């Protein structure tokens, strides 16, 4: 077998318009006109990720775990199944692992090789999660990175950095804030931020929420 000409196939993108919006338009036009992509299916995906899938889903999972010890145990034992109980499953969340913060352990998640992220519970990742800065620095100087998010941890707390594999997606269960004992699940969910489920934030305190 002759060696595949490297540039010919792998750098076809260099033939596209340089303006990102025009580039995207050119790609979609070509794919739609060739019958390769249904533009209404693109509309559907944009709608789902804009309106249906997002950190509000993960917040429900965390709030349930805070209020229901049996659910918390199931979530820690089999994240995928427990999350599916609340109706969240599928693409980029096929193999979920929940990791729990406590008084002596803090968890934080990254994907150093690309930008793997648990879509069914958190939606699409923010720009900083996908940035070279976060991907490069978190595994080397996690406390300095967390400091930039306003997360200051005691020196003696164990910090666990989870680098996503090809398959496993992590959901951090943040610590339940004090003064929330009487709150409903919906009230609790409002305290659970996206960043608190990545590990770059804490859950809001009831006064702030």
């Amino acid at each position: 077998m002759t060696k595949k000409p490297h540039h010919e196939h792998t750098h076809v993108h260099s033939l596209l318009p340089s303006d990102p919006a025009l580039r995207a338009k050119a790609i979609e036009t070509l794919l739609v006109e060739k019958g390769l992509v249904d533009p209404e299916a693109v509309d559907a995906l944009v709608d789902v990720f804009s309106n249906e899938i997002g950190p509000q889903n993960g917040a429900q999972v965390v709030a349930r775990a805070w209020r229901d010890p049996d659910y918390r145990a199931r979530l820690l034992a089999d994240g995928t199944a427990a999350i599916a109980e609340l109706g969240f499953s599928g693409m980029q969340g096929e193999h979920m692992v929940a990791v729990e913060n406590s008084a002596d352990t803090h968890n934080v998640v990254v994907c150093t090789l690309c930008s793997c992220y648990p879509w069914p519970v958190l939606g699409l990742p923010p720009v900083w999660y996908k940035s070279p800065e976060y991907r490069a620095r978190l595994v080397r100087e996690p406390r300095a990175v967390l400091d930039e998010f306003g997360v200051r941890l005691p020196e003696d707390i164990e910090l666990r950095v989870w680098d996503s594999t090809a398959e496993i997606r992590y959901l951090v269960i943040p610590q339940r804030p004090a003064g929330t004992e009487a709150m409903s699940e919906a009230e609790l969910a409002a305290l659970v931020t996206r960043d608190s489920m990545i590990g770059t934030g804490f859950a809001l305190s009831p006064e702030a929420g």
Partner: protein
Amino acid sequence: MDSVHDLGGVEGFGPIPIEADEPVFHATWEGRILGCRFLMGFWRLWNIDANRHSLEQLPPAEYLAMSYYEKWAAGVVNLSAEKGLITPAEVEAGHPSADAEPRTPPVDAAGVRAFLPQGRPAAREIDDAPVFAVGDKVRTARNMHTGHTRLPRYLRGRVGEIISHHGPACLPRHQFQNGGRGRPTSLHGALQRS
């Protein structure tokens, strides 16, 4: 492969670009590209590992300069051309060639909505026992990779402790090389103490 996508531990980067109240998409085109790249996967000519590898193959300087969805745009065009779904001439013209046979998209709006909650689980069935037990000490491989690997450079040749077993899955580098027909092996979680 050992390119700049393997960012873990690389020095020289500045502050994390944190944006308050960030929108899901910063421009309409980002959602269109997300949709196009996602939907082209339904032709089943490549798997998610090859999809990731297509981004790793971008020239290093371009990789670092491109935004996430710019990488996705380049990746879907390069993979589609590599698999013959589009030609370089069509990419340059922005339209199908005159002799292109019209096709029917493999999935519509209802189909993709139904697919999302299913996803594509990586779990496989094998009879073998797990390779390691929780608590075992392991040392990761040191070798360099020209294909696709999920073992980042900062974790090569390092000693860690097995902390979990996730059941059998296919190694991404086999998935990529053999079109998803790699032999499944045990997937473990490991902890490396610094």
